């Protein structure tokens, strides 16, 4: 506002309109009412058509009502009929529609020509990809993410494993929730949480393990804080390495050192046994004990007795745990008392803090173990629940199995029976599927960035729906060599499908413009096993096209060239879809892609896999009617019923009557879960004299992941314009740093000059600093470590040693 110049009348009216909109938005959020928020600062003129869709951003799975007018998304409102968000949206959700309309949307296929690009036709683009694959199918890799919709991921999976007999397909989700997967598998023999968001509405105690839902899953967190504002008693405990917005709402903040969580879990288990407050009946009826098999390291370890488990926990007294974790012994006792109280309902939440951890599988298993040992499992409010960061990390990655070792429906390529089942569903010849797992994310990119004559056997990577040039750890090793070692990597070819220019398109050889969100049909799966569907509402800009179509078009080009892998047992195209006249529809031609609902066809084919491990999905049309359904969705008396609590009698239809709790996918085949002992182990890198600070990376409320969408939304970009180094006042003073000063941050892998924010959004303790990863101009992953968890192969982005120096102006 310019106070020196009087505003003209129309400007005043416009200003009043904006102010009214601002108040409507705030009122909608505060009161949970269903006001629609005009997102483009544009007064509604004609009638707006409203349709449902899940939000494009995180794994919470909020439903939005999308207002479309004149072929454009003009408004977004929280969906009051959605159980997940009950009409609420976070600040990102309210602006999700604007993500479609950044000024620099990619609209044409672009082929690198020296240091620039030239526009090419889709036909040339598809042929270029087919040429690369045909020349060396075994050197091709597909890299996706939990932003693939379920049909997109399924098509990519079938193309690679059922078509090319190539298992080099992996997702960005490897970097974000692979350790949650291995934690679930090691404990229950099957992936994904047993509980659901309803636990948040009834728990007495909510423990956040290295988790900041107030910023990362704000609508979920508000379900709990709203209960307090209504006068309900709920105890919130934040176990973390820095104070966050979540801490502000918690009664207890337990500040730990990196890997302190492992000591804390052992300390709780130690006291439960010592005090006799563990749930003996639950444990004796439903649990076994496991420990790592050091001689033959494997995900399922070796069995131990209860007495061995107890003996291994003996050193983890509260005082010893305090030494290892930094959390006061009395706070360990408090946690043990809470878990030892059977009257309380306890829910644990975690996300990247426990997953991006070189002992991620272990700590995931250990937190499940604390819940199992104390019997806080299987009833409403008692649940260990991991959250996901991407909208379909569960649906597309974990259920469709777009991982280098997996097949859809919880199956794996290494198992002959699983391969045979998949070959039947896909109607492909016997032994088509390669039994050897492909490369996981870090290995895939390391191979791509290694010269062919030095063993780098990945020659072409096709990236869809993700931004590895910003998210991979240790970028100077895993991505940047494409530029810095160009001369030796000339034969490597990077294909990127995206909606905007990104840090990844920067080094791409071929860029494909993609449709996004409601510019295409979609189905996704959120963090609570909820599968959600939406229809295309608007056209993508220019020549942008669906990612799924792109994969099918390449597959058909290879089919036309006679590649056997693109044919099924009956010599038909792998992705043949018939129309109502029972004749094939040429869906590989863009103008015919929406003649049929390709999503529905792929989903119904995929649905067969979902029953193989009791993750049953309902028919596609059931999801059209619903705001998502939580699997297993089982037909009973003509109704498709979802499951709120798995493994629990009365909730899960697969639990036998009279069993109470039944872990029916137990890895020990006795319907029991595994309670694990793991020793505390130090992080892969710890501060020392040379690199005295521990660097933690993460997200902020306003931006989703790499910011490629949210930074193009003016309100979000202005609210959080750039990356920063978060440092406490004492450390800042010691280095002569003031707010806004530039600091040089260096690790053993790279360096970054970045503005300082003292005790900013979060407050790190002395010796710890934080940098968010959303800013593509300040790539914190130049600094991070690429050390992996041995089982999940997930890197640790939370603990890299760095040093800091003030940059003189």
């Amino acid at each position, binding site marked *: *506002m310019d*106070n020196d110049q009087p505003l003209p009348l129309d400007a005043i009216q416009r*200003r009043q309109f*904006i*102010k009214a*909109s*601002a*108040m409507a*938005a*705030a*009122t*909608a*959020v*505060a*009161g949970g009412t269903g006001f629609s928020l005009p997102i483009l*600062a544009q007064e509604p003129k004609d009638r707006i058509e409203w349709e449902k869709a899940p939000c494009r951003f995180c794994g919470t799975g909020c439903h939005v009502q999308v207002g479309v007018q004149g072929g454009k998304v003009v408004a977004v409102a929280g969906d009051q009929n959605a159980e997940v968000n009950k009409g609420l949206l976070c*600040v990102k959700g*309210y*602006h999700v529609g604007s993500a479609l309309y*950044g*000024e*620099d949307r990619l609209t044409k296929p672009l082929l690198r020509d020296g240091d620039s*690009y030239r526009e090419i036709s889709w036909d040339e683009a598809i042929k270029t990809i087919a040429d690369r694959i045909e020349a060396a199918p075994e050197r091709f890799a597909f890299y996706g993410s939990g932003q693939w919709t379920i049909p997109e991921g399924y098509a990519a999976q079938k193309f690679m494993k059922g078509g090319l007999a190539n298992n080099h397909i992996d997702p960005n989700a490897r970097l974000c929730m692979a350790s949650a997967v291995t934690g679930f598998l090691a404990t229950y023999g099957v992936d994904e949480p047993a509980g659901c968001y309803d636990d948040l509405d009834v728990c007495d105690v909510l423990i956040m393990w290295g988790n900041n839902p107030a910023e990362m899953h*704000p609508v979920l967190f508000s379900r709990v*804080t709203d209960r307090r*504002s*209504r006068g309900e008693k709920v105890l919130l405990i934040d176990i973390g390495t820095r104070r966050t*917005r979540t801490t*502000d*709402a918690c009664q207890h903040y337990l500040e730990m050192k990196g890997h302190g969580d492992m000591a804390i879990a052992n300390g709780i288990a130690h006291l439960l046994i010592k005090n006799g407050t563990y749930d003996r009946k639950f444990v004796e009826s439903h649990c076994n004990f496991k420990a790592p098999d050091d001689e033959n390291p494997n995900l399922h370890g070796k069995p131990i007795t209860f007495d061995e488990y107890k003996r291994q926990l003996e050193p983890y007294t509260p005082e010893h745990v305090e030494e290892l974790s930094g959390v006061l012994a009395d706070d360990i006792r408090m946690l043990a008392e809470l878990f030892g109280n059977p009257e309380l309902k306890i829910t644990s939440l975690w996300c990247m803090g426990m997953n991006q951890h070189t002992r991620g599988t272990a700590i995931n298993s250990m937190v499940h173990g604390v819940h199992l040992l104390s019997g806080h499992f299987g009833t409403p409010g008692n649940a260990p629940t991991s959250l996901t960061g991407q909208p379909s990390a569960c649906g597309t990655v974990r259920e469709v199995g777009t991982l280098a070792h997996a097949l859809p429906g919880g199956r794996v390529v290494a198992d002959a029976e699983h391969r045979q089942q998949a070959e039947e569903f896909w109607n492909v010849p016997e032994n088509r599927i390669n039994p050897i797992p492909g490369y996981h994310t870090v290995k895939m990119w390391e191979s791509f960035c290694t010269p062919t004559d030095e063993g780098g056997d990945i020659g072409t990577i096709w990236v869809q729906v993700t931004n590895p040039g910003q998210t991979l750890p240790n970028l100077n090793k895993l991505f940047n060599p494409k530029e810095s070692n160009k001369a030796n990597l000339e034969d490597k070819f990077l294909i990127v499908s995206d909606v905007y*220019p*990104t*840090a990844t*398109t*920067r080094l*791409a050889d071929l*860029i494909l413009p993609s449709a996004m969100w409601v510019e295409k049909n979609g189905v996704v799966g959120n963090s609570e096993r909820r599968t959600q569907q939406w229809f295309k509402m608007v056209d993508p800009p220019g020549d942008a096209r669906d990612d799924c179509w792109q994969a099918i078009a390449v597959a058909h080009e290879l089919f036309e060239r006679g590649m056997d892998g693109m044919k099924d047992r009956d010599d038909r195209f792998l992705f043949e879809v018939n129309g109502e006249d029972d004749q094939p529809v040429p869906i590989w031609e863009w103008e015919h892609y929406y003649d049929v609902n390709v999503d529905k066809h792929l989903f119904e084919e995929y649905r067969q896999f979902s029953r193989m491990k009791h993750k049953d999905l309902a028919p596609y049309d059931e999801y059209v009617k619903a705001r998502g359904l939580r699997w297993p969705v089982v037909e009973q008396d003509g109704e498709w019923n979802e499951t709120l609590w798995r493994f629990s009698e009365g909730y899960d239809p697969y639990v036998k009557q009279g069993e109470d709790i039944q872990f029916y996918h137990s890895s020990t085949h006795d319907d029991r879960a595994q309670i694990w002992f793991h020793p505390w182990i130090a992080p892969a890198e710890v501060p020392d004299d040379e690199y005295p600070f521990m660097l933690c990376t993460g997200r902020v409320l306003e931006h989703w992941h790499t910011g490629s969408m949210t*930074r*193009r*939304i*003016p*309100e979000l*970009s*202005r*609210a959080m314009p750039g990356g920063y180094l978060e440092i406490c006042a004492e450390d800042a003073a010691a280095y002569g740093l003031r707010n806004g000063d530039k600091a040089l941050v260096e690790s053993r892998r790279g360096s970054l000059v970045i503005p300082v924010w003292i005790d900013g959004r979060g407050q790190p303790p002395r010796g710890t600093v934080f940098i968010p990863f959303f800013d*593509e*101009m300040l790539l914190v992953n130049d600094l991070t470590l690429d050390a992996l968890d041995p089982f999940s192969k997930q890197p640790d982005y939370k603990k890299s040693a760095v040093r800091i120096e003030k940059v003189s102006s």
Partner: protein
Amino acid sequence: MIASLIVTLDAKTQDTIDQISGLPGVEIGTVNQDAARLPITIDSADPNALEEITRSLQECPGVAFVDVVFVHFEEARHARLKTENCFNG
């Protein structure tokens, strides 16, 4: 600049509401009697003033925390993302 915010209160007291409404440019919306979250707008001259008022809000006794729903810049154009080092300039 117009900002839309939610103020979450520890306890809803008239003193707290009076203090909030006394801040420059602040307007409080209406909510249910029992709700501990107040919808408010701030009309400010520039980002610094907005930040200052927001900080004052956070420091008001009785305020648990403040969430920004959106910030509208009167002169808003599409935010320019700095992609110079990426692609296409």
